[in-house]
């Protein structure tokens, strides 16, 4: 079976299944996740293996899904809740902004909320403006949430393990455009600690900081530029909270140039936070201005040609890197 492709979407189900096997308190809930196996096929096999007692189909009720997950998490379970498209997080935003992340703090540490909210994030598949947003930044604005956004199947499994085992609430963004991509199946008990960025490609001229969909895109750009003699280091953040700024600053010690590539709109994007920390603590490491390649501040359009106009592309990244190296 070694030749069978292990896809990102397989990795989601595999990552959940591994945790459900080792911990009976892990339960899943969401719309169409049971017998239907998920609209993105990211829960394939779970219902068959664990049954309706651990994999619960819900009504289309995002507040009930996330609110019930919170109540269950407070009382001894480790729920994994699916919100089908990340755009729909807006329907249960009270739970993500006001309830889940504050419960521990405002009770003086009496309550912990160990839950995972999984959701399909991002554009690239032509779903239109209400099913295509990259919304990690919504969560980034809320103290008390941990934020995970993996770029490859092995990380999906390893980060899922860490997210489910975390005693803190985690929002887990699965990028829609990456679901069909494949990679090596990670070994048993593969865990990627939250808050540890990966150096996805080593380089010496420019550091590119990327997340989820922008990681493969940046790697492609790096590959192209290698042919022009430009050596690009690509860092996959993997998590936004905790944010691994140590790896970013260490990379800048080698490269002295920084490009941040994010799919979300430039305004309020996570890249702004990365850049502000670098400006604050690593200014003397820089030999050039910082560039951000980010989405435009418009709703995601439907047509491919229009979408490419407003979200990062390989060409936009290579162009930013070329301009920096020429500075």
């Amino acid at each position: 079976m070694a030749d069978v492709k292990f896809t990102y979407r397989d990795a989601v189900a595999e990552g959940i299944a591994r945790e459900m096997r080792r911990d009976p308190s892990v339960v899943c809930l969401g719309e169409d996740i049971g017998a239907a196996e998920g609209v993105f096929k990211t829960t394939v096999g779970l219902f068959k293996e664990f049954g309706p007692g651990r994999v619960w189909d819900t009504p289309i009720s995002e507040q009930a899904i996330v609110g019930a997950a919170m109540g269950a998490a407070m009382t001894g379970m480790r729920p994994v809740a699916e919100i089908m498209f990340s755009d729909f997080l807006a329907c249960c935003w009270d739970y993500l902004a006001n309830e889940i992340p504050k419960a521990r703090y405002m009770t003086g540490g009496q309550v912990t909320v160990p839950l995972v909210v999984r959701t399909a994030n991002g554009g690239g598949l032509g779903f239109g403006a209400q099913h295509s947003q990259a919304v990690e930044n919504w969560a980034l604005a809320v103290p008390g949430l941990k934020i995970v956004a993996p770029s490859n199947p092995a990380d999906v499994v390893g980060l899922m393990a860490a997210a489910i085992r975390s005693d803190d609430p985690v929002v887990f963004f699965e990028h829609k455009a990456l679901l069909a991509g494949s990679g090596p199946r990670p070994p048993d008990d593969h865990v990627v600690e939250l808050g540890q960025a990966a150096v996805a490609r080593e380089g010496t001229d420019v550091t590119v900081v990327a997340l989820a969909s922008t990681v493969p895109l940046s790697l492609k750009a790096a590959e192209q530029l290698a042919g022009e003699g430009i050596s690009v280091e690509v860092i996959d953040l993997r998590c936004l909270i905790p944010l691994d700024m140590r790896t970013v600053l260490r990379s800048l010690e080698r490269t002295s140039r920084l490009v941040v590539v994010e799919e979300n709109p430039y305004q309020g994007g996570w890249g702004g936070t990365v850049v502000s920390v670098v400006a604050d603590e690593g200014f003397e490491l820089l030999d050039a201005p910082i560039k951000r390649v980010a989405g435009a501040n418009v709703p995601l359009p439907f047509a491919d040609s229009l979408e490419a106009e407003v979200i990062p592309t390989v060409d936009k990244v290579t162009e930013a890197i070329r301009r920096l190296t020429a500075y």
Partner: protein
Amino acid sequence: MTPDELLDAYAEMVLIRRTEKAAHDLFMSGLVKGTTHLAAGHEAVAVGASAALHPDDYVFATYRGHHHALARGATPEECLAELMSRSTGLCQAKGGSMHLTKASKGMLGSYAIVGAHLPMAAGAAWSAKLRGSGQVAVAFFGDGATNIGAFHEALNLAAVWSLPVLFVCENNLYMEYTPIEAVTAVPNPAADRAAGYNMPAEIIDGNDVVVVWETVARAAERARKGDGPTLIEAQTYRHFGHSRADPAKYRPADEVERWMKHDPLDVARARLEALGVSPDTIAERDRRAAATVDAAIAAAKNAPEPEPAMAFTDVWADGGAAWRT
């Protein structure tokens, strides 16, 4: 309820009334900041329900939740210390009046976003069902919450999953400053919605602690047997306005008078006397409650404020607040 149980319930209601009076007085003298939403008048709902529940059952309340925290076993001292921003407060002065929580007693929080805690209570009941623990969860909420989407989502989920949860509406006739009938399409804001979720509902006198106790005990028994959720609409009345900013002048005088004559403490006292409990025995419990609250006020006033470093603890389960490595 036996005479002794009723006497204890009465004493608990007196303790809550006195604590609420203390909260009011401390607010007026500048020792409680922010705001308070007093539950004076609602005591029978909290005390009757608590008397009917097991110690390990779960309770979720609203920003008007002093009475629920106290009825579940939070002490007047830790509640008043919390309101006065003292380090000995129930939530180490990080919660305040609207967030009284005593997790060790099953009081899993007071939530200040209207209706938000109903799905949480359903979730705690789901957890109890998954674990086969026999516990039930109770969500107390106001009439105003019945027009929030989360109310409807929680009721539907609880019904389709047959969860051991009780939804207890404290219908005090006013959604903040507005009469509930002015903004609600049905006369009984909670109970009239239950049919939509195939859920049994009862409308009860929420100022009679014995009636609340009987109703909640019956519904909890039903839930423990696996027969699913119940909706209880307990009719009651606020003695004060919505919050400290509200003198409640919009309420008709005859309405106020009618409800003040139906004070839950008086109703319980009349029941005790009818059972042959002597006025001296009742007066003794009144004195004990007064002494407890007086001591609580003094202790809370003398407690220190939290250290500034406390602002940076308990965001995460490891106790800290670091967002980056």
